[in-house]
């Protein structure tokens, strides 16, 4: 896919070093290290139970690692270790510089309040207080994610699955985050709805120069959206590289199995 402005010498946005997480005797994530640069889309692929969702939670500071750490370069240019951030600081990051798109939109949205309020709420959280401006910006974002403005006062529980997911994306992007985490964002959707959502995401990611860490078991999603993939199995990263390299020339037995399991289009 397009890769605007991936400069050669800029600083990484997020660096994971030797991340591990055990739940009792079960090692869910073992010794994962990588760097993510601004505007770069990284897909984490693997089957259920491979540790990819645990890794996403570690990276987004929602789960404390058993070992290792995650460094993030804040908007002021200072790099901070996520484990040293206070709860309030982390929540502020989540409201401003980060987004998190859940597989189930109900987890990322407030289902009983209007679509406009769902988007506007994030703006209010960062200090916007002019109702007219908030509503204009919310309308603008609904348009960008292809939701009819006439539906702005309806609650997302009246929306279809695809619309809910697009609304969740608008809610996340309205504060212009630099990094968005996505957990199976097209997971529960029909194929036709998926294609539309992927196309929309692809455009927004390039246009807004977003860094994205996307967890998916769908290699077609990884191919369409990501620059780079990490293949996980048993909590370890077993293969990593440029997306088309890994998918067209997979080396590890497990990656070859994943790639060969894709149904032809």
């Amino acid at each position, binding site marked *: 896919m397009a890769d605007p402005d991936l400069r050669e010498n800029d600083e990484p946005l997020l660096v994971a070093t030797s991340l591990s997480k055990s739940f009792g005797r079960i090692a869910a994530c073992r010794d994962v290290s990588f760097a993510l640069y601004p505007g770069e889309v990284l897909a984490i692929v693997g089957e259920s139970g491979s540790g990819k969702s645990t890794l996403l939670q570690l990276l987004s500071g929602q789960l404390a690692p058993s070992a290792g750490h995650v460094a993030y370069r804040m908007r002021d240019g200072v790099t901070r270790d996520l484990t040293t951030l206070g709860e309030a600081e982390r929540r502020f990051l989540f409201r401003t510089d980060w987004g998190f798109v859940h597989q189930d939109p109900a987890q990322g949205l407030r289902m009983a309040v209007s679509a406009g309020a769902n988007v506007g709420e994030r703006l209010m959280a960062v200090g916007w207080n002019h109702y007219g401006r908030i509503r204009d910006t919310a309308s603008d974002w609904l348009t960008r994610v292809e939701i009819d403005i006439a539906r702005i006062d309806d609650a997302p529980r009246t929306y279809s699955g695809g619309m809910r997911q697009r609304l969740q994306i608008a809610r996340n992007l309205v504060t212009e985050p630099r990094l968005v985490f996505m957990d199976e964002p097209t997971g529960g959707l029909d194929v036709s709805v998926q*294609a539309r959502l992927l196309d929309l995401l692809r455009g927004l990611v390039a246009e807004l120069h977003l860094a994205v860490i996307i967890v998916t078991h769908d290699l077609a999603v990884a191919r369409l959206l990501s620059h780079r993939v990490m293949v996980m199995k048993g909590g370890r990263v077993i293969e990593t590289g*440029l997306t088309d390299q890994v998918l067209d020339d997979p080396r590890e037995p497990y990656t070859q199995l994943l790639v060969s399991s894709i149904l032809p289009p």
Partner: protein
Amino acid sequence: MTAMIDIADANKTFTMHLQGGIELPVVRGVTFQVNPGECVVLSGPSGAGKSSILKMIFGNYRCDSGRIGIRHRGALIDLASAEPRQVLNVRRSTIGYVSQFLRAVPRVATIDVVAEPLIVNGMARANAQARAGGLLHRLNIPERLWQLPPATFSGGEQQRVNIARGFISDLPILLLDEPTASLDAANSAVVVELVAEKKRQGVAMVAIVHDDEIRHLIADRIVDVTSFAAAA
């Protein structure tokens, strides 16, 4: 003259783990150079590894050993050992690849599919679209189709869209995988013209062409891939 592409002793073997770890040698000892303004055509029978070599030059297939030297912004970079970010940079500003088939993006209009490489490199949309239109026109894609996504086009039309997208940029290296395979004589002639123009601009090209007549028209030099046959 300084070569744009400098490949030395590149080797590639596929290990098929799902078939009991069988080793499938592809090419061995691939060594050749391509200078600016030169079109090198890879020859050899089907299965000799021509497409694999193109993919190795594009960084799509990894090499087991050897060097894929690419002149990128004035310096030689080895794609065989480059970081993914470097490979993406090289693809954005140095190497273009015209594959056999268009990997169509759903919902994107043909004119934008063609203009995208220029927009990614910072050209204003209107200018990029104007250039895209010019190329589509030359390749006989009627204007009424420009706003439609190419997914529903015929094979030949898709290939022409693909060629337009590949030739629109001013990249110094271009890889062509059977660019005329599903084209009629008139459109093949346009591709031959486009290749000649790129040569005059100093673009280094590596091509796979099965049609003898077209190969004769575009090749400055032929590299016989059978000399890199992997069988020991």
